[in-house]
């Protein structure tokens, strides 16, 4: 380039900010899964990001084998992850419900360790991605250019999140799950099958990461080693937004997505995580219950 750009045009900043928000919505869906699991089962899913990388590799396998578009795979991948989450809760996590917190945590660390390195053994360490028919498409909003893939991904994430909200508000099962979250003993007394509802919840949380992972494959690549980073990201989002608050997860996701995009643009892409950790520290200091969280005693 012959001349140095001193002033960044507003369109560029807007483009960065909007794509940050769009990616943030997908992050929000991922974090929503974590929030739902913690809010109901009271177990911190330390294998959350690793489960998402499993979903992402499923997308790659389906895409290379059958050529399915990620948007088509949204439902099957979520279903597979639902089954994975349901079985994990039933077989491994359920005996740990009354164990101390650190014990549950270490259990999931172990599961995460096995998942990351299992993927490493199967798929190798290189980063893999897919190219869809709309990978290079974009929308032009009055000079602000937005990737089409990101728009579709964010839109799909919003739909899944709304379905989840509706499920918890409107269906009997959803209400039963909320009852378990509110009062464990009360739920037992009125005869709810808490074990099954917990497994269902874990499955739903896993389905969220399944959907989020599928959507992320439209916009980014995956390596086995990225799992822990997504776990941390989900935690940062959930704590920022407010643990147990479903809208909080989405708000936190958007906030973190926006921060990362702008930090990556103004500083270096690898420094973006530092900024989200900075937000985490600030939130823990000044509003430990999170942006949308209710204050507890």
């Amino acid at each position, binding site marked *: 380039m012959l001349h140095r750009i001193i002033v960044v045009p507003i369109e560029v900043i807007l483009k960065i900010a909007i794509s940050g928000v769009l990616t943030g919505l997908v992050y929000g869906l991922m974090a929503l899964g974590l929030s739902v699991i913690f809010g109901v089962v009271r177990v*911190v899913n330390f294998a959350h990001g690793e489960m998402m990388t499993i979903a992402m590799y499923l997308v790659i396998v389906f895409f290379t084998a059958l050529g399915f578009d990620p948007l088509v795979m949204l439902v099957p991948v979520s279903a597979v992850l639902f089954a994975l989450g349901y079985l994990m809760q039933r077989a*491994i996590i359920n*005996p740990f419900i009354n*164990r101390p*917190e*650190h*014990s549950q*945590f*270490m*259990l999931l*660390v*172990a*599961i*995460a*360790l*096995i998942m*990351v*390195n*299992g993927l*490493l*053994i199967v798929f190798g*360490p290189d980063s893999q991605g897919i190219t869809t028919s709309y990978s290079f498409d974009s929308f032009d909003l009055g000079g602000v250019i937005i990737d089409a893939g990101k728009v579709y991904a964010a839109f799909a994430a919003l739909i899944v999140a709304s379905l989840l909200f509706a499920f918890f508000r409107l269906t009997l099962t959803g209400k039963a799950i909320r009852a378990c979250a509110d009062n464990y003993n009360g739920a037992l007394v009125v005869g709810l099958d808490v074990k099954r509802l917990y497994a269902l919840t874990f499955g739903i949380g896993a389905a969220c990461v399944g959907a989020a992972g599928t959507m992320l494959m439209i916009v980014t690549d995956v390596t*086995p080693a990225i799992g*822990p980073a997504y776990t*941390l990201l989900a*935690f*940062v989002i959930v*704590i920022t937004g407010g643990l147990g608050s479903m809208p909080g997860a989405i708000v936190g996701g958007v906030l973190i997505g926006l921060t990362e995009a702008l930090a990556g643009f103004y500083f*270096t892409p*690898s*420094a973006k*995580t*530092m900024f989200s*950790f900075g937000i*985490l*520290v600030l939130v*823990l*200091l000044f509003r*430990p219950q999170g942006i949308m969280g209710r204050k507890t005693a």
Partner: protein
Amino acid sequence: MKYLFDGVSRSALILLVFFFAALSVAPMILNDYLIVVLITILYFAYAGQCWNIMMGFAGQLSLGHALYIGLGAYVTAALYVKFGVSPWIGIWPALVIAGVAGAVIGFLAFRFGVSGVYFAILTIAFAEFARIGFDHFSWVGGSAGYFLPVANYTQNDLFNLRGSPRMFYYLLLAMAALAFILCHILLRSRAGYYWLAIRESPEAAEALGINIFRYKMYAVVLSAALTSLGGVIFAFFYNNLFPEQVFHISRSIELILGPIIGGIGTLFGPIVGAFLLTGLAEGLREIMLRLGVDLPGVKQVFYGICLLVVIMFLPEGVWPPLKKKLGLDRDSGGKGS
């Protein structure tokens, strides 16, 4: 020193002396490969012991101990390479810096009521922060790594920590033994009893008038500072440091596997865990070598399975049931010896 022999049964003492004696003469019999394996074991035993002060004694789960390892490693290595400062002098700033890092994390967490899993996340966040920070810290090589001049193995220079694996072996043996004795004394001191009270029930401890903030801070700072010494050995033994490896979360997890598998809060747990885990991992490596399989990640999957099995079936770790088998628990010195 008045607590040194408190609650130690004769049989435990005899066993301990034999164990230490065996480790002391081991390098004279073993080949270089096995010495390096033993160095790894002692390193994990030492670092695990340090982590145990925080989690096992005071009940604060840290998943970011790689931070303190890394700080100790980078501070002493940079002082040595840039200014020729002997690591024996370099450990003092390292201790202080790691201690301050621990104090900052502890202060942020304990002042604002961040505990349990949130605290664990905060410790991870700081370690990750350091990892990315050191990736961009070009003064010590950034992401390209930082290297110490490789030692001349024919001559041991203890003052500059340049020498053969045998030298590092004895150094680590001394460190692990001293950490063991220190933890034994700590558990029988006022602070130790306060920590256990805080671990079991912070509310009850506070109601009894224990300043839980102060004692949690003591645990974090002590654990952080001692852990950094492990980092010094790491730097001078391996001679290369990469932020991506030193500060990575898998390092933190590797470090805490020993005490968890051995038995959280016990003195022998970290040692037993380090022997078991490293021994089994090396055995696995040997088998894979024989079979001609070379897959990265197998060792980690194996670690994961070990952790899973122990957590599921031996929630207290390997040592407490083993201790019962050996008949060492007759005179109860608490959860200690």
